[in-house]
Each structure stands twice: as structure tokens, then as C-alpha cells.
């Protein structure tokens, strides 16, 4: 099981269709402030079914679509696809390759797909469960969240991992 690629279009600053391939080992993402690095992490959360706007640093779906700039029109649609090599069948789906896709319009309608077949949000959440819990994406500035939690809240991390 490994991550193969991420495709982003119309989501936050990724107005143009962008493809990021992931290989084995460590992948580093670098660039100036405001260039879009954390937006990549938001795209992964979003396609995996994130429902909390606060976690995505915005207040509504409309703010996730490329809002345009002085020289470029806003996007009418945001779409993110995340593709996995599933030869070991870690994900409970009978495909060697699994792609999760999420699409949203400015009006706020969300659509979900697994290998281009339309599914519901809960299908995405169920299928992606083996990929690990909330701790697999550590947001900027929230590095030491585990230490700021009260002991009772921290136990939930372990229940996630169990």
C-alpha cells in the first residue's frame, strides 16, 4: 500500500490542474510563504472526507474554490483526486489501484467518487479507514497539540490508533 499521486484543480490556489507524484521514501515540499504548500495538505484532507471547515482554515465550501485574482477568473469547480497502489488490498476494495475523488461547486454541492463511480461520503470514510487516524496529517502550528490536550482528550488518540 502506498500513495501514488495527488491531482488538484480549482481547489484553493491550485487553479490549473496540478499532478503531484509520490514515490518511496521522504518527499519534501518547499517554497515561499503563501505559495500553496499547506493548501496541498488541505487538499488531501478534503478528498479524504474532511468535514470541518475550521480544520481547512475557511468557513464555507465557496472559500475552497480558487477565488481568482487580478489576472485570472475564479474557478467554478474544485476537484481533488488521490490515488493509491492497493495491490496488498489494505483498502477493502477489489482494485489494484484506488482513486478517491471529491468535487465541489461554488454553491456548496459536494460529490464523491471511488475509481470514477459515484459514492456517498460515508463510503469514502469507510474505505479510507485503514489509512490511519487523525494523526496522519499534522497541521502547521499544531505540532504539539498532543501535549496541550488534557489526559482525557489524549486517550482518544490511542483509541484512533487501536
Amino acid at each position, binding site marked *: 500500500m502506498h500513495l501514488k499521486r495527488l491531482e488538484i484543480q480549482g481547489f484553493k490556489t491550485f487553479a490549473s490542474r496540478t499532478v503531484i507524484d509520490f514515490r518511496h521514501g521522504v518527499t519534501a*515540499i518547499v517554497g515561499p510563504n503563501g505559495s500553496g504548500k499547506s493548501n496541498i495538505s488541505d487538499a488531501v484532507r478534503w478528498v479524504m472526507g474532511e468535514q470541518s471547515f475550521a480544520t481547512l482554515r475557511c468557513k464555507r465550501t465557496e472559500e475552497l474554490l480558487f477565488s481568482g485574482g487580478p489576472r485570472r477568473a475564479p474557478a467554478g469547480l474544485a476537484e481533488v483526486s488521490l490515488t493509491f497502489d492497493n495491490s496488498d488490498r489494505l483498502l477493502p476494495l477489489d482494485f489494484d489501484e484506488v482513486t478517491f475523488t471529491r468535487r465541489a461547486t461554488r454553491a456548496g454541492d459536494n460529490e464523491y467518487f471511488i475509481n470514477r463511480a459515484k459514492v456517498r461520503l460515508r463510503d469514502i470514510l469507510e474505505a479510507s479507514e485503514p*489509512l490511519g487516524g487523525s494523526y496522519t496529517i499534522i497541521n502547521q502550528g499544531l505540532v504539539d497539540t498532543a501535549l496541550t490536550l488534557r*489526559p482525557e482528550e489524549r486517550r482518544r488518540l490511542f483509541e484512533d490508533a*487501536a
Partner: protein
Amino acid sequence: MAERFLTTFEAVAVEFERSFTQLFGGGTAQLRLVREGDDSQEANNGHSANGAFDFDKRPVTGVEIIARPPGKRSQNISLLSGGERTLTAAALLLAILRVNPSPFCILDEMDAALDESNVGRFREALLEMSERTQFIVITHNRGTIEAASTLYGISMGDDSASRVISLKLEELVEQD
């Protein structure tokens, strides 16, 4: 359910002690269960009120962290420095990943508070784990970048849109 939690907890607790010492280059740390009726360890600066671990049948209410960086005395984790907190949180993350390896993990500027020698140990720990877990690190730090076998540079175009280019490690070094 409670069984699985306890088994997971014990496995993570063992890995946490090891990861902590690896990341700090020394020192010790533990995870401890807080049970109904206990005073919080974190409030008591790490002095254990528990007796034998296995026979305590009271319900578990939480998980406490006791951390003692090298050369220092055990204290409340709130007194830890910014970099020490980062490393302690990293030790916990790595411990969880060792027990339950996720296929991938995204770290967004997790190294921001680390000094040079801690970045080095953090990088080594990531490399060691990168067999089983694909790490995607967003970073400004040259020491962390050295761990990368794939490197992407993101930039903002004149059209207010992001661009991604694939970089070679040698290229990045030359630019500075």
C-alpha cells in the same frame, strides 16, 4: 474494546520511551494511564501514585506524558521549551506509527522550532521509518530537506495560482 485500547497503549508506551531517547539523544520519558480517583501525574510533576500496573481495575480516564530531557530533572511538561515540546510530540507520533504503521503521513512544518542538532535526529528518525511510511514533509529547513528522495518546489504565479515543479536536491543547494 477496552482490551484493544490497553494492548495498543502498552505497545505505544514502549515505543514512546525508545523514540523519545532517540530524538533527544538521551533522557527518558513515559506514558502513564490516569485512572478514576488518581491525582493527575502531570499536576504532580511526574511522581507516580500508581502501584502495580496490571492489577488496577479502575476505569482509565486518560493518558499522561512524563518527559525528562537529557541532563534535566523530571518536571511538568508545561515547562518544556518549544523545541522540546516538538520533539516530545514527534516521539509520540513515531511511537503510534511504529505500532500501527500508516501508509503515509503529512508533516506541515513540524520542524519549525527545532535547532540544528535536533533537526538532524528528527531527520534520522524519519528516514528510519520511511521504509514503512511515506512521509511528506512541508519544510523550510535545509537539514530536513536532506532526508528527501523527492523534492517539489511550490511557487505563486502572477495569476495568483500555485505552480509545482519537481526539483533536484543539488539544484536547491545551488540557489542559496
